[in-house]
């Protein structure tokens, strides 16, 4: 048995004991989540170590029901006194809550068991073994690669390397017991260049993976970070106009992230989404297919069972531009008169809500360069700023920077403009999707183009 397996077993035992004590104390339903993690984070700046941080932590989350009254508690104090307070507080708060007819655990017949869980390969013992010296040297290498790439890189916000390892367990009075473990390594390089008028341009690039061997080479991360920083030099506003906009895969992912929040069952029953009553209708152009896939090996958002113990499954959310389903946990499914899609996520503090796992907008056949080449005049967006999105109406307006596209080529860098269009229309106006999807993030999209948006500038 590996270290992680042994640790997982200990967490399940602790969870079971807390769950049982809550039931003895008067709870009708009790669910205990236990987390244990450790990490090493280092940062270097101008080649010198700036931070070395190393620590481990453990926490307990408890959710109880008395009748249909719900409460949850959390503690990082695992002492006997800490556990007692956790349980007593939960029971006291449950008696303060009011009965919610939709509240309740999933039916026991829906719960999954270990033989059904897929091996998602999210754990690499090699990640836990990375030493502080090795982490510092990878960060230093990445930063140096950025400086060596171009003499216009004159300063740095630093380069950081982090490794983390987490083990968690869930035990419920409905009869579920399960554990999960994963590792994660990442490298970020953040160089700075001087621009005209005393302005500075800061850019970054990063790599992250479950397995150490999958992490991008430090040299490549540093060079890409430098390339992105230099590319912004001399950025200017553009005049206010309507034009086609290409979102590179980072910017496209951020658009998909807004959609992700609107497709959750919890947003739907709260009427806090422009997608209320839209299942079966067109929500994007026919080029758009979106799946939520928790079962991808080594992916950042992968999970075998959900936060309520249900078996996770691949859900097709949008097919040919038509919305097929919302993503639901048991509670939101009951509110909407449907069944859970196995999308429950349990926060360490004990709350449950639906969430996406790996939400992916599927790649198409065209290359990114072809998309640019067939755009006569347009904006190529590489990053966005601000929080200008209203989920209730879909109204979207954010700051953007990137490049002007002229005659099918990227030309002058652009900053200090905003782009606006209602998200519903934005997704329906997608007229090209590229082939450059990668699995670095739990929400992922290839580059895509929107036929026309409003740009506000000078």
């Amino acid at each position, binding site marked *: 048995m590996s270290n992680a397996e042994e640790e997982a077993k200990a967490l399940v035992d602790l969870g079971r004991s807390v769950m049982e004590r809550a039931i003895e104390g008067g709870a009708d339903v009790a669910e205990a989540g236990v987390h244990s993690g450790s990490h090493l984070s280092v940062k270097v700046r101008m080649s010198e170590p*700036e931070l070395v941080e190393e620590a481990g932590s453990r926490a307990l989350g408890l959710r109880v029901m008395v009748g249909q009254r719900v*409460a949850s508690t959390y503690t*990082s104090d695992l002492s006997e006194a800490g556990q007692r307070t956790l349980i007593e507080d939960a029971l006291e708060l449950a008696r*303060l809550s009011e009965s919610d007819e939709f509240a309740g655990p999933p039916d026991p017949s829906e719960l999954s068991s270990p033989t059904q869980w897929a091996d998602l390969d999210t754990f690499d013992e090699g990640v836990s073994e990375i030493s502080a010296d090795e982490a510092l040297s990878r960060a230093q290498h990445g930063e140096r690669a950025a400086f060596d790439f171009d003499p216009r890189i004159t300063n740095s916000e630093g380069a950081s390397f982090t490794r983390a390892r987490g083990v968690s367990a869930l035990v419920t009075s409905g009869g579920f017991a399960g554990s999960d473990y994963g590792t994660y390594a990442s490298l970020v390089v953040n160089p700075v260049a001087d621009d005209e008028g005393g302005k500075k341009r800061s850019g970054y690039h990063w790599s992250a993976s479950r397995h150490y061997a999958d992490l991008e080479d430090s040299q490549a991360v540093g060079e890409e970070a430098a390339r992105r920083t230099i590319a912004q030099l001399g950025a200017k506003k553009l005049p206010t106009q309507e034009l086609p906009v290409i979102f590179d895969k980072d910017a496209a992912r951020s658009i998909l992230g807004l959609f992700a929040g609107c497709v959750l069952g919890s947003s739907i029953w709260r*009427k806090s989404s422009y997608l209320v009553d839209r299942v079966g209708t067109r929500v994007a152009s026919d080029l758009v297919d979106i799946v939520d896939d928790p079962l991808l090996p080594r992916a950042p958002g992968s999970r075998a069972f959900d936060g309520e113990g249900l078996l996770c499954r691949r859900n097709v959310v949008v097919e040919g531009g038509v919305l097929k389903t919302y993503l639901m946990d048991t509670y939101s499914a009951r509110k909407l008169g449907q069944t859970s899609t196995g999308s429950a996520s349990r926060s360490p503090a004990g709350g449950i809500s639906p969430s996406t796992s790996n939400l992916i907008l599927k790649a198409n056949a065209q290359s990114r360069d072809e998309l640019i080449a067939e755009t006569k005049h347009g904006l190529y967006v590489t990053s966005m*700023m601000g929080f*200008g999105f209203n989920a209730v*109406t879909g109204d979207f307006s954010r700051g953007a920077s990137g490049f002007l596209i002229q005659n099918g080529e990227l030309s002058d860098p652009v900053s200090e403009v905003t782009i606006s269009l209602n998200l519903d229309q934005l997704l329906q106006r997608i007229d090209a999707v590229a082939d450059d999807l990668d699995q670095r993030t739990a929400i992922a999209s290839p580059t895509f183009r929107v036929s026309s948006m409003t740009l506000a500038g*000078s």
Partner: protein
Amino acid sequence: MTGRYHAPFAEHGSHAVDADIADRLLRIALEKGGDYADLFFEYSVSGSYVYDEQILKSARRAVSMGLGVRVMKGDATGYAYCEDFSFDAMKRAAKTAAQIAAGGQPLAPLAVSMRDAPNRYPVSVESLDVDGEAKKAILERADRAARASDSRVVRVDASFAESAREVLIANSLGHMARDRQPLIRFGIHVIAEDAGNRQSGSSGGGGRMGLEYFDGQTPEWHAEQAVKQALVMLDAREAPAGEMDVVLAPGDSGILLHEAVGHGLEADFNRKKTSNYSGRVGEEVASALCTVVDDASLEGSRGSINVDDEGQLPTRSVLIEDGVLKGYMQDRHSADFFGTTPDGHGRRQSFRSHPMPRMTNTMLLGGQDAPEDIIRSVSRGVYAKKFGGGQVDIANGDFVFSLTEGYLIEDGKVTAPLKGVNLIGNGPDAMRNVVMLGHDFEVSDGIWTCGKEGQSVPVGVGCPTIKIASMTVGGTQVAGG
């Protein structure tokens, strides 16, 4: 001591920490040759209540506690933490943090003694010690008021969050300080529907105080504000796009200043020369009308602190005076670099994070103009009333803000409400374009939380009515076609 939740490391706690224990841990932290070490003990309890669909749907409580040990050697920081206060666990954390300085000579810490701190949030009864029924009643009142006020209101949810954070800091320079920081935050969110059109509105507030907050701002008042906002937005039209004059309402608009100017004046960015304000102390960086301060001492304000998270005693820092840059906000690390004294801006999210220079209550002080005159002076522009949030690129000062409530100004009058407005600009440019300042200075109600490098801390903001000549408004309506 009354009340239910107290830190184990407090004077009569189960793991009381005194000068002797602090000294022993600091010695271990410095045994590898560090120049400076500090200990940050934290115990934090928080609770939250959500009232939704006319019932108290969820109640939560969380306890988080631990010790963070920091050791510095030159510009390098070693950091480690533990979550229990047994001497062995604390010693391990101190030894881990000490490694940053491997190879140096041990330095003895100075004998620690407790500093007297002021009390900027004298709360007679902390919210955490009040029976839950009282909080339920407040949420119920808000819910009832919002539902009764207009038939177009189709959804209401109200929430209340409370916390108390007890800290004890000791450092190798001999300082020791403690603080207990209470905080409450109330919020209501409504959705109104009319002929298939749906809009939301919200209102909230709080601060470092107890439930007496609701004597001044009643739950009913907040409900009315939220409903009013949602109803106004039902009639909102598409916003204009392009450059025009912008008038910012007093109070809440201070968030723009926090983002556009405040972050760039945090000394870590200037130490690293990555801020567009680097090396510009003494230069004119804003219109002569502008005086900007960061003031930790406002009684009961969300951003106020008695002691910062490095054990310093913060006061009021003048950042910009009559348009001239006076100084940066310092923590210990940056103050050493600039050869000045730390001024109480070292803050951190929790014992799991190292401190960095952060804001407390950031304010642009009031001017001479009557607010009516300011609006009357604009022929076509935008009146920004409520902000959803914003972001800044520290390196060059570019910022973006989104409005949750904004109006068109036409011929000197506030007219139609606008949807989805963003303001985009550059901090120093916007500050140079401040052409009028109202005499109606206000501190925002306590709702703002500031994020930096993944760490969140509560902050306050404040300002008068402000006129900024020519800012880019990001709407969808291109003028002149």
